[in-house]
């Protein structure tokens, strides 16, 4: 945890080990449950579904027996952008409904400020933002199961993964009550990280050497947070969005798929799945 000018600066981030991810979708279910994400009776149109965490299925496009698959869970990248706060979405929002918190590295979304212009959705290269095309309608009785710490969103506003910010607030309150100066690593964990049965998702403070993410990722903050670990990468590094979300894979073809390459002969995968629930159905 960095301390400058009396304030503590953390940079919460996530690393997902793609060698461990089985594509089970527990992270998606946990996220939906934790964050009161609305759904419709007919979820066929995935382009209008809200899934803060989405699992992609990637393929190396080689014929049997060289076929290889990889599941890639993708929430919001919480991009730092240039000049610490010039994330693609933040710089374009006309009403400051989204902001980069320098003290945590989290990109917030204020639902009561958002007026639904969707400019941030267009700006986001990861398509990590979702619009409420409808008002949420919970099946009778289910409203009792909603998380009281997370406000549901009405139609006409944009929402996205918040790194379970409400859990950070709870953790801060708890640490304050306990008289702790620091929040313990396990005190603030995202729902997806806790739910993952394979332990593929690691969440924590990238700037805190005591947090496991720090040793896994080894971010070089002089190089915009780029990882010193050759297995670890971020999506679309060339765009210089400086995401706080990292991936780890021992497979070269997976790492190659993290960014666009200038060589046209490189095979471009086309078979993907937006949501692995689709596969089950």
């Amino acid at each position: 945890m960095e301390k400058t000018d009396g304030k503590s600066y953390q940079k919460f981030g996530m690393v997902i080990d793609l060698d461990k991810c089985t594509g089970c979708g527990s992270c998606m279910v946990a996220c939906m449950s934790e964050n009161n994400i609305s759904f419709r009776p007919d979820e066929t149109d995935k382009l209008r579904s809200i899934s803060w965490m989405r699992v992609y299925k990637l393929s190396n496009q080689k014929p049997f027996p060289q076929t290889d698959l990889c599941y890639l869970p993708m929430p919001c990248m919480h991009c730092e952008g240039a000049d610490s706060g010039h994330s693609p979405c933040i710089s374009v929002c006309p009403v400051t409904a989204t902001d980069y918190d320098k003290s945590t590295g989290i990109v917030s979304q204020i639902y009561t400020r958002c007026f639904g212009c969707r400019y941030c959705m267009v700006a986001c290269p990861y398509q990590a933002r979702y619009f409420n095309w409808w008002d949420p309608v919970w099946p009778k009785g289910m409203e009792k199961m909603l998380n009281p710490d997370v406000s549901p969103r009405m139609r006409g506003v944009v929402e996205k993964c918040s790194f379970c910010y409400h859990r950070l607030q709870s953790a801060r309150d708890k640490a304050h009550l306990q008289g702790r100066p620091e929040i313990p690593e396990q005190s603030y964990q995202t729902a997806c990280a806790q739910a993952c049965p394979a332990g593929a998702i690691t969440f924590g403070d990238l700037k805190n050497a005591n947090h496991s993410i720090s040793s896994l990722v080894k971010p070089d903050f002089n190089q915009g947070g780029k990882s010193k670990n050759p297995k670890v990468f971020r999506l679309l590094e060339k765009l210089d969005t400086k995401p706080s979300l990292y991936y780890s894979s021992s497979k070269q073809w997976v790492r190659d798929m993290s960014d666009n390459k200038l060589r046209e002969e490189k095979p471009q995968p086309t078979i993907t799945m937006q949501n692995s629930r689709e596969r089950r159905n």
Partner: protein
Amino acid sequence: MKAVIPSGEIPRCSSRHFYLRLLPVLILLAWGIYAMLLVWIKGLNQTNMNNTYGFALWIWADLAIIALGGGAFFTGLLTYFFGKTELRSIINFAVLVGVICYSSALLILALDVGQPLRFWFIYWHANVHSMLTEVAFCLTVYFVILNIEYLPALMEHPKLQQIPFFKNLGRNTHAVMGLFAGIGVFLSFFHQGSLGGMTGVLYGRPFAYREGLLIWPWTFFLFTWSAAAAGPCFTLLLARLTEMVSGKKLVPGVVKDLLAKISGWMIITYIVAKTADTIFWATNTAPKAGFVWTRFYTESPLYHGYWILVAEILICGFIPGLILISKRGRHHKRLCWIAVLLVICGVCLNRWSLIMQTVAMPVLPFEKWVFYLPSWQEIATTLIPVSLGIIIIALSYRHLKLFPQEKELN
């Protein structure tokens, strides 16, 4: 209602005939209003927009309408600041077209946002670094100015002329028109440009992203330039359509010729700049993001293929530009009007490409292209400006002295 004809000397058709001819347009407007109410009451799920197509038909329509409404500011600039006084015979009409275009754009914006009642946030909680904020501020003020610019024409209604206050109001507003026109030009430069800046600053979207000058991407200047080129063409086209419907000559040929020539030079210089910008983007900017420029035009060749580039730059850029700058081209009636139409199409294509192709083109290597077709509600509401425009022009032409030289020319 009996038409109070401007100066009582120019004949107009009977009211029955007038409203009967407007009936199809009124039906179209009613359809649009029905769709509009559906969208406001039921929400944006009435459209075919989705999480990939956050911007779609409406935003394209907004950008295109505002570009085509650029005739108001550019004609004003030419009339009041460059001394082209002969354009006074079309300036009223150009301003009216501007009023229609900008009011339509604001209406479509009110439909497009998810929470229209929160529109005031954009002023109260303005993010000054966002291009959309700039657009909102400039658009709002410019819309007020356009209405002020239209006031003298409105005050010339014979019934209003009988009321001294309105008579004097029209005269005094006209006297200060240079000031309002000047502010209008200043604001237009910025909001037309900011609309281009909106796409140009998207560094997460390599198709749209452009480098530029200081905080302004090159698309900022290109949008203003193209609006200045296409706006007068649109004004000319609508004037010609009004002539055809009314069966009267309304604008002197020399004025049309002047405006067409100026448009021609604007489009030719614009398209050269646009070509240079496209080449720079294709060879420098896009490769930095890992894209070979051909990818943008080959991955979805039917809807976003090379044809867009050829159509926008060559067919709707160089060709009409060359026609309009040549005297022979302008004096060949059919060729001239084809050129005017092509300029308008070119600007619409440019806005389409920068909005639709930007959102359609996936950035992540493993994302896929998504197809979009607007819903009937989107189409109906997008046609509201057309129907409203026809009605407003028809009513203005019928009751006001929209074309000062109408009497002399007929």
